[in-house]
């Protein structure tokens, strides 16, 4: 009985999270007449909203931009972040301690605070309306460095010694010995970075004005602000939102094991 009540509560909690999402998915498939209803199953399902959305704004291009930007950022954070983490964890050089402290200090500065100086920099570099403006500021990430450094500290020293005696240089040790061991933290960093980059809307709004370079959330925001207010417009906006949400949900579904595993472990180890 106690167990049943527990499951009922869990189901209720799940429903409060799931219902809005399912409603959004359902409504994006409804004709204008049904949009106001709370039902989760459209009476006359239609793809018209998706067709309209696609026709009114360059969502295809925006999808590509988002994928390209988020993937490049993720790749770069993993490659450079793990290299920095490796150096900070396992190499001895003058200034290592100071750099470690500096990396932590970076986390203390809120992103909003650096928004204006970064914008000025991008303008001076002439990078406004370019992929560089969307990618470079996010290509290095202190959180990623700290998570990976923490993991790399636990890799036994003898493994590095063995690799050095086998003839490996530092980069090869990092990418062929440490990476295979660090699948879980790499997956965490990868997912967090990808989600962050995928959802980022404020920064693209600042540095990109060319519609062809806009990312999905940015175009969606612009589209929502100017797309009218009727039921048809609402359904079209929801269709656009679906396009944005589905890739992240899919990625999460595939990687959730790593995600939960490493979120749990970074909690204790970090």
């Amino acid at each position, binding site marked *: 009985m106690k167990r049943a009540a527990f499951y009922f509560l869990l189901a209720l909690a799940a429903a409060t999270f799931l219902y809005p999402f399912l409603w959004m998915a359902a409504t994006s498939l409804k004709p204008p007449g049904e949009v106001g209803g709370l039902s989760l199953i459209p009476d006359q399902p239609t793809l018209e909203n998706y067709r309209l959305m696609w026709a009114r704004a360059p969502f295809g291009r925006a999808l590509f931009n988002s994928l390209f930007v988020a993937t490049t950022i993720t790749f770069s954070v993993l490659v450079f972040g793990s290299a920095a983490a490796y150096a900070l964890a396992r190499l001895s050089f003058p200034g290592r301690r100071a750099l470690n402290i500096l990396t932590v200090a970076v986390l203390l500065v809120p992103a909003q605070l650096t928004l204006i100086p970064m914008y000025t920099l991008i303008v001076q570099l002439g990078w406004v309306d370019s992929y560089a403006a969307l990618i470079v500021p996010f290509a290095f990430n202190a959180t990623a460095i700290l998570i990976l450094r923490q993991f790399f500290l636990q890799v036994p020293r003898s493994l590095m010694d063995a690799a050095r*005696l086998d003839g490996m240089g530092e980069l090869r040790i990092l990418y062929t010995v440490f990476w295979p061991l660090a699948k879980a933290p790499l997956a965490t960093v990868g997912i967090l970075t990808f989600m962050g980059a995928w959802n980022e809307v404020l920064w693209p709004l600042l540095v990109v004005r060319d519609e062809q370079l806009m990312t999905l959330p940015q175009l969606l925001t612009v589209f929502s602000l100017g797309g009218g207010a009727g039921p048809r417009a609402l359904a079209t906006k929801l269709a656009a939102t679906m396009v944005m949400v589905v890739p992240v949900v899919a990625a999460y579904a595939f990687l959730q094991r790593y995600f939960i595993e490493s979120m749990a472990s970074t909690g204790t180890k970090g």
Partner: protein
Amino acid sequence: MASVTFEHVRKDFGTTTVVHDFDLQVADGELVVLVGGSGCGKSTILRMLAGLESVTRGTVRIGERDVTQLPPRERDVAMVFQDYALYPHLTARENISLGLRLRKLAKAEIERRVSWAGEILELEPLLDRKPKQMSGGQRQRVAMGRAMVREPAVFLFDEPLSNLDAHLRGQMRHEIARMQRRVGTTTLYVTHDQVEAMTLADRLVVLEGGRVQQVGCPVDVYRAPANRFVAGFIGTPPMNFLDGRLERERDSMVFVSDVLRIPLPPELRPDPTPDSDTAVTLGVRPEDLALARGPSTADDPGPGSVRGQLVLTEVLGAHTHLHVEVGDRRLIAAVSSGSLPGPGQEVVLSMDPRRLHLFAADGSPLRPGSHEQNTDAQELGPEFEP
């Protein structure tokens, strides 16, 4: 294959010196064991030879080549680690062959060497397993295989058996000895376990506090320790020590302590003859103490004998260790098992004066001068039988 030379090698970590002026010449094909307690610098010496630790001062040579400044991969050495250090994501075969692949050896040659090592170490059925699917002993064999296939100039073993259980340790010790004899590669082996040290070494290097205490073949180190530290460190159970003084009595010398009085035979008399009443420490190996037959009723147990109370007997099988409290100290005697007195009983231990060791107050040995030390008849303790 090659010789190895350390010349005046020193290692500092910050302001601490962990290796002082280390000199050693290892001949081609020789197996030298560095032995000492933890923190004595033995692993650091090995790591300096491998290039995993920089050398503060001095020169390290492999053959004629000065390798002091070379990175590990250019030194042509292979190392077996205490925790095996196998790559967890690779199979045994991949672990063994990785170093060869990185050196871009021909595929056929890699195959040949992997199967050669697999055969010697009986690894064939394990080659496609990953480390976590193997036992400790199997992992250790894979780690040895990885070192062997490199066909290096020098093998380095850093406490390779300390993570194994006693039975497996004995077995792996034999395998290492067999493998080293078969391939004949110059080998440096670090251990804190003196049974390993005594059984494996062509020569032993005993270290303490970053300084060499003695270099020699195991039997010589055991029979004629260079100082009190070596005497106490090599041998299980350790040598018994009694503090006392030397007294001149007519034309002979006598060791006198509060519990023992023993005249020194002429062949053991130190040269130059020390002054009367010199403070010395007498050392006697547990196997050189014997249980006197029948309880002595006299108050004085006689010259060369001590009376004490048996507090503990450890039966090891053929041999038994008797812990005897004599005054405020404890002596250990290793005797043949059989009908032995029980704990709590009073016993008399006698010692053969020809098998005693004498050390000056600074720990240096008081050796007989022109007299030959009579050690030929001595036997090593049961622990050191190969």
